[in-house]
């Protein structure tokens, strides 16, 4: 505590006695979170080891079928076992698209964050504000906005047809490409914000020193700027990768049920698939992937505070 005084001091005494039990103030929030956020995750884990009910829900009987079904497929007629191609395709698509999305947002976000960080100080918060506004608007609406731009009768196709580059529309909607564009669009602010946070602290006298030593602009970028803002790069990448992996709305609207990601596969099991244990097992799989990514992040940035965004 900053102003701790000698024990004989009554104010210091009061401050100290207050601080001891103060953490109890967070108890109500923790109770609500335990009831409606962390606690239920344990139930999902339990459900992944139960048998599927006939119509929906579960039968309370231990079974590892759900976990088996995540990667394997057992033919009900001849009993042969093979890999569940559909699941593996979807899993692979989730990881691949999330990875590509992270790379693209980094490629666009890095120069943008740098541009904002090099504006005069009083203008920066306005530029930053322009980045955050879309982030605070509805994800569904932003996805819908992308749908309107890339659909067959959308702006891009009509524009290209008008200038005569193509004579019939390119099918972009309901492809992996559409999902990737949508995720890049909705998660871009999550990349720019942490990048900006570390670029703002960039010490430009180091850049100046490099130029004094006859470094080219490219060299300054590669040898000075990028290494210095690396914590921001890692934080931004994690912040984009994790929600991309668990994306649900964007692939549903832009993939149109044809191109599913892990989130949609999970929904399917709780809806038309009527296989809750499998859905639970897939959820745990997704959670594990996310936690692994987070753990990697914590490992690489130990003792580093670059992760603080908002």
């Amino acid at each position, binding site marked *: 505590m900053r102003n701790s005084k000698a024990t004989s001091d009554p104010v210091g005494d009061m*401050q100290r006695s207050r*601080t001891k039990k103060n953490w109890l103030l967070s108890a*109500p929030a923790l109770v609500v979170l335990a009831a409606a956020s962390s606690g239920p995750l344990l139930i*999902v884990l339990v459900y992944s080891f139960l048998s599927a009910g006939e119509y929906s829900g579960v039968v309370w009987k231990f079974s590892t079928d759900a976990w088996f079904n995540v990667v394997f497929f057992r033919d009900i007629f001849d009993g042969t076992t093979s890999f569940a191609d559909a699941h593996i395709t979807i899993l692979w698509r989730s990881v691949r698209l999330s990875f590509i999305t992270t790379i693209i947002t980094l490629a666009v976000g890095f*120069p943008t964050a740098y541009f904002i960080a090099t504006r005069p100080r009083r203008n920066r918060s306005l530029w930053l504000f322009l980045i*955050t506004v879309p982030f605070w608007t*509805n994800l569904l609406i932003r996805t*819908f906005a992308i749908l309107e731009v890339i659909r067959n*009768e959308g702006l891009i196709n009509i524009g290209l047809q008008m200038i005569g580059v193509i004579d019939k529309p390119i099918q972009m909607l309901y492809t992996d490409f559409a999902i990737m564009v949508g995720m890049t669009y909705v998660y871009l602010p999550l990349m720019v914000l942490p990048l900006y946070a570390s670029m703002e602290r960039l010490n430009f006298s180091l850049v100046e020193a490099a130029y004094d030593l006859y470094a080219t602009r490219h060299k300054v970028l590669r040898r000075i700027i990028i290494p210095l803002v690396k914590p921001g790069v890692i934080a931004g990448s994690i912040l984009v990768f994790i*929600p991309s992996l668990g994306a649900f709305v964007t692939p549903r609207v832009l993939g149109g049920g044809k191109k599913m990601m892990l989130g949609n596969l999970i929904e399917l099991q709780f809806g038309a698939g009527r296989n809750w244990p499998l859905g639970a097992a897939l959820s745990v799989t997704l959670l594990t992937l996310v936690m692994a990514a987070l753990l990697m992040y914590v490992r690489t940035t130990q003792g580093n505070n670059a992760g603080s965004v908002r």
Partner: protein
Amino acid sequence: MIAFIKKRTPFSLKSQPGFGLIAGLCFLMLYAPIITLVVYSFNAGKYISPWEGFSLQWYVAAWENEAVQDATIRSLFLAVQAGVYSTILATMAALGTTRTRPFRGLMAIYAMINQPLMVPEIVTAVALLILFAMIKSLTGIQGMFYLVLAHTAFCIPFAYLPIRARLEGMDLNLETAAADLYATPWKTFWRVTLPLLFPGIIAGSMLAFVISLDDVVITEFIKSSGQETLPTYMLGQLRRVVTPEINAISTVLLGLSISVVCLLFIVERRSRK
């Protein structure tokens, strides 16, 4: 034009080739789709495109649509409740975690409060679906309670972060001074801490309100029939042929979110001065 300026200005330390261009494209990319969506909400035609002239008919249609009215009221009701509850809980939690000496469990408390930010929404949604289905079949209790509880929970970290930031930036000497002048801890809180904390509380509650208003995934999973919110209603409509009515609803919702965020920006600027 850019080349022209470059020739005249002395060597710039900070510039990197092409970065300004990419940043410009980035801002264009961020706003062009939203602007397109807003523009087409004024389309007179039956479909979103082609453009057939200016008209407000889709706003009228949305206004008169009973399903939309119903969902709007429910969304606002939910967002106000979740916003208020989560802000109260988050303020208490922020006081509890900053006005204390570091101890072992503190990191665990941080992790727990921020947990909704880390776990994918779809996983939380599924977990709540299972839990609430269980409770409903055991007790038979129905109603908005489940939605309010779920929304309150995932709004807590959004309300917590700005409030904690404000508390950490606060001058503790003021509280000590109040205590020096024989204010009771309770009085110190009401007369010193809380007024100073107010901008943080405003920011936190507004963020919580917007986050609740925008939620699709968790609501979609745990709502009972007849509990559509505006976002879940829209998600349902997107399955069909969409008319500019969806654009009109989107524009109104966008306007609401953006004005809340703008207000926040202004409040923050003021409180910094």
